[in-house]
């Protein structure tokens, strides 16, 4: 395992020290593992808190700041945070207008945020939870833990954050988050596996000419294995897969997030995005806004995910609203 770390056990703590040093605009509570804005919002405002296992940077800490999150709770690598973190975060940023938990749909995340919500309620805090489950690689059935939360998290955190910044009430902010999640679909392809520091070896072995199709962001294998093909064909497959599960008709507008999984050069992401844009144009889908880069990563996994969110004037306005975080500025 080749990594720029000190020890597998200390990765999270060491990274938090680096985040604290790099971002004076954030307050990093290392012992409690909570990242908040250094400057508290003036007056009461709905507090947005997200969190999840580490290894997906810049998610979530990179999205803490005016116009987006109030706090992030990073767990160990690929391990959801513990309830104490979310409780500490809620107490730290709650300003009288209630708290929204933005939770990616994974068993561990759901359970830990659920316990945190119970504890927060016992302390008299009003908490709403928005569940993000946009990954169409998993069919949502009694046969699975439900769809994974991936790229749509960025859109939910950005738009709900913008609405909260405007002073919208708790239920409205939560409802908007749910609406954006419902309007989003994602799908991912990996060229290489991710290596979790604690595991010390890749999550799966992939021959030089094969790819994993329908992967998640925790190093687990995908739904099937295929031969590596030109970017044009992979982009077409991903676009078709996402659209097949999406309720879009020609003329509809979308926000497109072409996301790198961590080890993919930006040059390649642009190659893929060019093909994605061409396929969407052929289908009559108009890309109203796009974002290309590494936003929801899976450690050192090479590959990409595409997220398409059906847009409307309100969403576009919230998407365009000012934001000032380490990973997203406008």
């Amino acid at each position, binding site marked *: 395992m080749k990594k720029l770390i000190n020890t*597998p*056990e200390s990765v999270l703590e060491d990274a938090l020290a680096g985040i604290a040093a790099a971002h004076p605009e954030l307050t990093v509570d290392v012992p409690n593992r909570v990242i908040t804005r250094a400057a508290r919002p003036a007056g009461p405002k709905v507090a947005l808190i997200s969190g999840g*296992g580490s290894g997906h940077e810049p998610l979530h800490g990179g999205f803490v700041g005016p116009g987006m999150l109030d706090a992030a709770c990073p*767990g*160990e*690598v*690929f*391990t*959801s*945070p*513990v*309830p*104490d973190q979310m409780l500490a975060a809620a107490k730290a940023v709650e300003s009288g207008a209630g708290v929204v938990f933005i939770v990616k749909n*994974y*068993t*561990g995340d759901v*359970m*830990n945020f*659920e*316990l945190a919500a119970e504890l927060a309620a016992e302390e008299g805090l009003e908490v709403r939870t928005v569940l993000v489950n946009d990954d169409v*690689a*998993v069919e949502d059935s*009694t*046969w*699975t*833990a439900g769809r*994974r939360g991936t790229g749509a998290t960025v859109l939910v955190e950005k738009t709900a954050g913008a609405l909260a910044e405007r002073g919208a009430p708790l239920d409205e902010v939560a409802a908007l988050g749910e609406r954006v999640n419902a309007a989003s679909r994602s799908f991912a392809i990996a060229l290489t596996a991710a290596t*979790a520091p*604690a*595991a010390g*070896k890749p*999550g799966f072995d992939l021959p030089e000419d094969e790819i994993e199709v329908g992967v*998640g962001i*925790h*190093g*687990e*294998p995908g*739904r099937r294995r295929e031969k590596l093909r030109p970017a044009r064909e992979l982009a077409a497959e991903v676009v078709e897969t996402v659209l097949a599960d999406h309720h879009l008709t020609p003329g509809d507008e979308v926000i497109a997030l072409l996301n790198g999984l961590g080890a993919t050069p930006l040059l390649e992401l642009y190659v893929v995005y060019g093909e994605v844009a061409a396929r969407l144009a052929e289908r009559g889908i108009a890309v109203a806004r796009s974002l290309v880069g590494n936003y929801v990563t899976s450690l050192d996994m090479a590959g990409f995910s595409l997220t398409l969110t059906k847009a409307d004037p309100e969403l576009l306005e919230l998407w365009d609203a000012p934001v000032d975080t380490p990973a997203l500025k406008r």
Partner: protein
Amino acid sequence: MDFDTPLAEAWIRAIAAAVEKEHSRLTELDTAIGDGDHGSNLRRGFAAALTALDGLQPAGPGAVLTKTGTTLISKVGGASGPLYGKAFRAIGTALPEPAGPAAVAEALSAGLDAVRLLGKADLGDKTIVDAWTPAVAAFRAAAATGAGLPAAAAAAADAAERGARDTVPLQARKGRASYLGERSIGYQDPGATSTALVFRTLADVTA
């Protein structure tokens, strides 16, 4: 022989030792059908549980297990943290003092109920429930026929290990492994495997 405070402490220390010994095996199982952290999750959790015990003057065996559960919840994270945490809290709360085999059977079954309430998994979903359920049943059956703690715990451990092995042919329907669909078949569930450790150590410390 009753389930008393020294036994409760001995059990937790034995689990911690077993996890320390087996964590890489658990992580490897989790790498195959999960995200490769089950071993390090439990290792971190039970190490913290030991520290918590050192500072503790337990009111009784139940307090030892409740404290352990609380510690797991606040130190582990992931799916296994809340599940094992709630389980030990439930066992500790249900445990009278002193507790004989029948009372321990009831407490263990309360632990299983807590797991199922939180995780909503059924038998056969390829989760810790698949090891925990036969273990509780075997323990209760042995206790009902008058077996002492050692015999009941040994029966539970055997049943848990069988239950863990029997997860191999199953397709996961809960947790991360469910994302793999049919590709989850053919691997032993990491959580069911750690549950087998939990019951084997109980047998060891009562033997």
